[in-house]
């Protein structure tokens, strides 16, 4: 009987552990999206202090036109897409 009780207690413990919601905080990173005002070439890089939306940055690598910051946002770390 005692062994059965111990087994039941262990079972309840594992069930409880399994059903408890586990929420791991996802790490995020801030990225800056730049777009060429002329040829629409898009570039994405990590956010730097001083960046802001509609700030003009250096010339476009493809056509030499002005690159403008069009978006700054937080995304889950490791996600690579544009």
């Amino acid at each position, binding site marked *: 009987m005692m*062994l059965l009780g111990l087994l039941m207690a262990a079972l309840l413990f594992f069930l409880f552990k399994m059903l408890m919601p586990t929420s791991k905080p996802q790490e995020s990173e801030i990225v800056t999206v730049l777009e060429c005002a002329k040829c629409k070439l898009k570039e994405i890089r990590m956010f730097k*202090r001083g*960046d*802001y*939306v509609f700030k003009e940055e250096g010339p476009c690598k493809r056509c030499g036109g002005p690159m403008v910051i069009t*978006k700054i*946002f*937080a995304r889950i770390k490791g996600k690579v897409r544009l």
Partner: protein
Amino acid sequence: MGLRGYGWMFGGVGQLFQQGGLLNTVVQLIFTIAFIVFLFYGQQIQSLMTLKKIEGSLEKIRRMRDEGRAIALETIKEVGKPDRDPAPKLDSLLEYFMIDPVDLDPAGIVWKLEHLMNVREERFRQEIREISPKASESELHNLENMVEAAMALNSIYKITRHYYLLGKKTMSLYTILQLQMLMPTIMKYANAYMNALKAFSKGVPIGDGIGALVAAKLANGESWRRVAKDTIAAKIDVDGRTVYVVKAEGPGGNVGKPGDAVLRIIEEEGGRVSSIIMVDAALKLEGEKTGDVAEGIGAAIGGVGVERYKIEEMALKYKIPTNAIVIKEDLSEAISPMKEEIANAADRVIEAIKRFITDRVEKGGVVIVAGVGNTIGIGQ
């Protein structure tokens, strides 16, 4: 060996638990004592266990508060380059407070509140300027917002500690339980303010800035003029309709005075405004998707209510319909760095605004589009 091999052991245990056996008596005694203890001291034991849990969360908030202060101090030193140590001034700013106007006679309270808010803002800006003499105007706005986030963290910590100590002092289970029930929400807000503080220290756009982002995108490349304190407007044409786009002046952290701006444009146009469209972030309910766009009626603007009051008064005076387009997000998303799904909603909102104008405003009509929210990290 099999189970049969352990028979001697279980047999021994069985003997110990026999009626009248020594172990049986001891176990019974333990259970009886435990029963009596729980009968008389159950509530106190529960209170102590709950207090221990709250203590853990309170310690986390304290660490966040200290980290927030350290980040604020470091940023002020880096950006503002003060001549002397800004720590004492920062510590006094963290304890800064404002006393709400008396509301026994509510007539005229909005103007009293506005006056107090203006005085507070001006005084706060002066104090920040004193410890950040080398900061530019937009950096100064960011520093102001950052110190406000540090103030919020300090308040959260102090209020939580107050109720924790009150519960500990009185050992009132109900005070302790109320605090324990609120702890997940308090922790969520503390985390959100910590994220906000980090965003403000770097000048990253926050979720609340989506209204300003929409306005900036709608009138991108147009010339802007100042129409109210820290607030600018641009005049654009949408399919034969004149549209005034209003937003706070960026890229510094700033919400401007959209109420005053809308008021001025209505007066400049002699009241002949066909519609006001307000774009703002709105708190979503649990289960709703972040970045969803919804349309409705009314003045979509948060804050203490002064700016909303002004817009509602003007709309009523000139019988101008007030429409709202909101972008759904929760409180922590509103004050944390702008999420991708919120940033992506801007184009959908612009489509909705243009559709609304072409469908509901006659050609030649005048429309005001107010992009409400903190414009940190968003230029024009």
